[in-house]
């Protein structure tokens, strides 16, 4: 699949922001006054930046409000609802912390739950697709949620939780790479099933429908990004999980350490998310003799 920058920015930053908001809603960190203003501002900033980026790849973003209508069947619609409700519910938590100096569990707990639910809905947009076997697996929601929780824990400065989550994240990343590689074959779609011609013999593409490219090929058959797969997999595990854990373990806890751990984590998160798209193969590639 095409690793569009807008979608990578959307999933990485909205996950990070919503993960941090979940900790703030739960009261794991409870800043007050000006600190609360800055901390909530940062969390909202990441979440809103990410959610806004998601509208950049739309053909007609002016109609985006229509995405709220189909929550019964569509994960994208559910994500739209969940994100807006969680951000609205988080507002009183922020205001009470800024002006009254206390943590509101009444608003905070449901808002935290909805923040994580939003991350889950985002992951299900990808995990629901049978056409992309690598995504169509429990590791997709597990990874998205663990990324959100790890990034949130680093931003919260909760070192012990962040280190534990980094370990979980590293293991999950390796598991998702290992399990993901066999998913396309396990789905059983081949050029023979795609064309129904397997009953005659082995199928290969003789001539594509046109000499140039098309929307489907640009969007779903992305080969360049897979070239450096092994290097990027290594970078993603080292930067997203290993280096943040080591920084938090070895360096004294202060804002500089948090920033360093977060910078490492984000580099790894971008590498992992790039691969998440670039390595995912869509079954439509079979009609083009490619994957």
């Amino acid at each position, binding site marked *: 699949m095409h690793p569009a920058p807008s979608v990578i920015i959307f999933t990485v930053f909205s996950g990070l922001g919503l993960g941090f908001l979940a900790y703030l809603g739960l009261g794991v960190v409870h800043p007050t006054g000006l600190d609360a203003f800055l901390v909530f501002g940062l969390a909202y900033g990441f979440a809103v930046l990410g959610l806004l980026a998601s509208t950049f790849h739309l053909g007609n973003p002016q109609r985006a409000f229509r995405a709220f209508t189909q929550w019964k069947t569509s994960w994208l619609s559910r994500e739209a609802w969940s994100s807006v409700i969680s951000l609205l519910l988080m507002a009183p938590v922020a205001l009470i912390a800024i002006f009254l100096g206390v943590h509101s569990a009444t608003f905070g707990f449901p808002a935290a739950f909805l923040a994580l639910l939003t991350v889950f809905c985002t992951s299900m947009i990808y995990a629901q697709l049978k056409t992309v076997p690598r995504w169509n697996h429990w590791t997709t929601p597990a990874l998205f949620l663990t990324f959100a929780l790890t990034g949130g824990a680093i931003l919260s400065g909760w070192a012990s939780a962040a280190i534990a989550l980094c370990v979980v994240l590293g293991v999950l990343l390796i598991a998702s790479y290992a399990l993901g590689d066999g998913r396309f074959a396990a789905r059983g779609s081949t050029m023979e099933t795609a*064309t129904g011609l397997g009953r005659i013999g082995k199928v290969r593409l003789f001539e594509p429908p046109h000499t140039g490219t098309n929307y489907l090929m640009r969007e779903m058959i992305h080969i360049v990004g897979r070239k450096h797969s092994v290097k990027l997999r290594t970078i993603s595990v080292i930067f997203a999980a290993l280096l943040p854990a080591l920084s938090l373990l070895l360096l004294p806890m202060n804002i500089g350490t948090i920033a360093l751990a977060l910078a490492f984590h984000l580099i790894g998160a971008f590498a992992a998310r790039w691969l998440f798209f670039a390595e995912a193969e869509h079954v439509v590639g079979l009609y083009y003799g490619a994957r």
Partner: protein
Amino acid sequence: MTELPPKGKKKLGLVIDLDICVGCHACVTACKGWNTENYGVPLSDMDAYGAEPSGTFLNRVHAFEVQPATGPAQTIHFPKSCLHCEDAPCVTVCPTGASYKRAEDGIVLVNESACIGCGLCAWACPYGARELDQAAGVMKKCTLCVDRIYNENLPEVDRVPACVRTCPAGARHFGDLGDSESAVSQLVAERGGMDLMPELGTKPVNKYLPPRPKDRAPAKPLDPIIADMQTTGLAGWLDRLLEKF
């Protein structure tokens, strides 16, 4: 709404005969012609006269080579468009309700004025039947020429999809696949019509008729010439002469 409607009796669709298709692409051209001038926004082309032309098409003809266990390979021309699936995954993923399946005849359509162009339905389709128009930013797909098949302003013979009407070989058939008595259903029963990628559970309405099995061994056009060389003429003499050395 993007909930799938209750299963209807009527299931309009196409039956494509892979034994007959000659790969002339007339259906591609007729489809683009009709659908760029009628229902919905035009099917745009990008850089049409430049170095990297590409465009929106609702129907494309691939060509595959199939190699049986014994004997020569076969070339099969393979037109592909929306299969109007009974369990259409492109419909349920749509966040806006733009993508829908009609209860009355099973046609899958896009309401272009509600489409935000997110592209998720194209990702959900295994068959590559949906293309996001790069000029209008809305999703385009086969409408089964919904603006022809019920159009009483057209002569009755023209009330079929443009691709079916234009096919010079008679490889495309249109009809109600929900009615077991219909001509298309009988054709499917007779010829063993098949689904594409049945393992994905989309239950396509459109069926493909497999190429008929070869009823005789392939001709070997060089054999008589080789036999001639062995027996008569200058070549025969040379052959016999050279055999001696």
